[in-house]
């Protein structure tokens, strides 16, 4: 069995990557049908001329940035506090939110917002999408921060405390700077999770808050369009770069914390 493992692994990686590679290749196809007719940049140019796509991209960027900013700040604070002293109730709640099916989280947020709006005169829109995104991005930040803190050398904090720093000063001037690569990694992860979400977003989005995944979903249902292929390539490459960057930073913050 051991002999076949390398061949098997190669096949598994092929399975994981070939659909994306094929999708990428056909984004340069000059024909609309799935037969290769020659190379073209047309579909990429069309993506940039499609105003609905550009509006949706802008919405997605605004939502992802806002949700990332909020989740990263409060998630880092919570991760730090949980590292100092456990809180099983909060930790388990966070893991439960991670295990909750997206569709359940989505409909419950929809029901909640609709109920709330009976008392407040507001509508579904960007703000509800951002709130929903914070609720599911938060757990990713806490997980990354906790993982980073696990290899964190607390002797620097102790030294600062001995020298008379308050606990807030220790956190602000010792922990945060040392943890910064980890915090940025958490933010990048958060951004990709938020940017990609369709299920929850589509349920709590209002009329003027259509996001990029919602447009892609609509296009995917309609049929094959090389424009979607081109768009997919750009998103996949963009998110891929962010993830690789996050991985780099995560590793570096681990190393730095051990041997600054």
């Amino acid at each position, binding site marked *: 069995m051991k002999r076949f493992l390398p061949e098997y692994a190669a096949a598994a990686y092929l399975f994981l990557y070939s659909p994306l590679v094929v999708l990428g290749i056909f984004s340069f196809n000059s024909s609309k049908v799935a037969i290769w007719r020659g190379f073209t940049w047309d579909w990429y140019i069309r993506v940039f001329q499609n105003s609905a796509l550009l509006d949706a991209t802008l919405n997605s960027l605004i939502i992802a940035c806002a949700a990332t900013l909020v989740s990263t700040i409060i998630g880092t604070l919570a991760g730090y506090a949980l590292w100092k002293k456990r809180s099983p109730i*909060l930790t388990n709640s966070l893991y439960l939110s991670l295990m909750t099916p997206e569709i359940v989280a989505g409909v419950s947020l929809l029901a909640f917002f609709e109920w709330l709006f009976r008392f407040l005169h507001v509508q579904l829109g960007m703000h509800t999408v951002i709130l929903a995104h914070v609720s599911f991005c938060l757990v990713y930040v806490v997980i990354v921060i906790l993982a980073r803190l696990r290899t964190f050398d607390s002797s620097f904090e102790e030294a600062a405390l001995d020298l008379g720093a308050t606990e807030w000063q220790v956190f602000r001037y010792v922990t945060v700077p040392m943890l910064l690569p980890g915090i940025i990694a958490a933010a990048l992860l958060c951004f990709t999770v938020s940017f990609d979400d*369709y299920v929850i977003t589509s349920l709590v989005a209002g009329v003027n808050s259509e996001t990029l995944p919602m447009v892609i979903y609509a296009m995917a249902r309609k049929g094959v369009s090389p424009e979607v292929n081109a768009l997919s390539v750009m998103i996949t490459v963009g998110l891929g770069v962010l993830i690789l960057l996050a991985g780099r930073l995560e590793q570096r913050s681990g190393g730095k914390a051990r041997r600054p």
Partner: protein
Amino acid sequence: MSRLRIAFLTPTAAVMGLLFFAPLLIVFAYSFLTRGAYGGVMRPWTLEAYDRVFDPLYGHILWRSLWIAAVSTFLCLALGLPLALYIARSASYKTLLLNLVMLPFWTSFLIRTYAWMFLLRDTGLINTALESLHLIRAPFPLLFNSGAVILGLVYGYLPFMVLPLYATLEKLDPSLLDAAADLGASPGISLWRVIIPLSKSGMIAGCLLVFIPCLGAFLTPDLMGGGKTVMIGNLVQNQFTTARDWPFGAAISLWLMVLVLFVTAFLGRKGEELI
């Protein structure tokens, strides 16, 4: 520390309370109400929604979801175990190989689903290629069936299986396999009697991590299953959008949540180390 601790934990606790538990509570309350004429809910309080969950009409959707999730989980295990074994056994590039498994997972789920639709559609690459080679006359129905949904789920959640499996296999002492071989065990026997028993915790964690999202899947059955392969997730979405029967949708959501709670409690601390 205590005042700073409270200040640090309050925002996260507030978000969890207001945007996770409160909405679930609303859904819980709604599941006992009567459907409103244009969506939403109204009184009187009733158990009618729960009666309908066990209606045979919806029973087969539940069954379909369970078996599709079970088959997908089993396939993930069968595909993931050798892959995790290979990564754990490889001398160098361990991190790279593992990251290569995780990378597609972090990029867009929607786009990965679309990539398969591009291959499997009637006018997709596979059918077009087979037709132009004159191997088939009419397009072969590859998309919009249970098989396509299972393929999409396995493709989507394979990393969830590989990660915990790798974590346990990496700790497995290779000399145990040498010992088994020296004592005359064939590779198949040592897989069955040494590797599998010793990686049990990883296998359980992986199976749960795959089974739960598969059971509550929405996007994959929606895009790759067509109208025929409805799963629980699609039923819930449909009740809250097109069908406008919020109490019934709420009741199904709660059943799904009970299942998730049960599994999460079972995973408990083990999940904390593995995720």
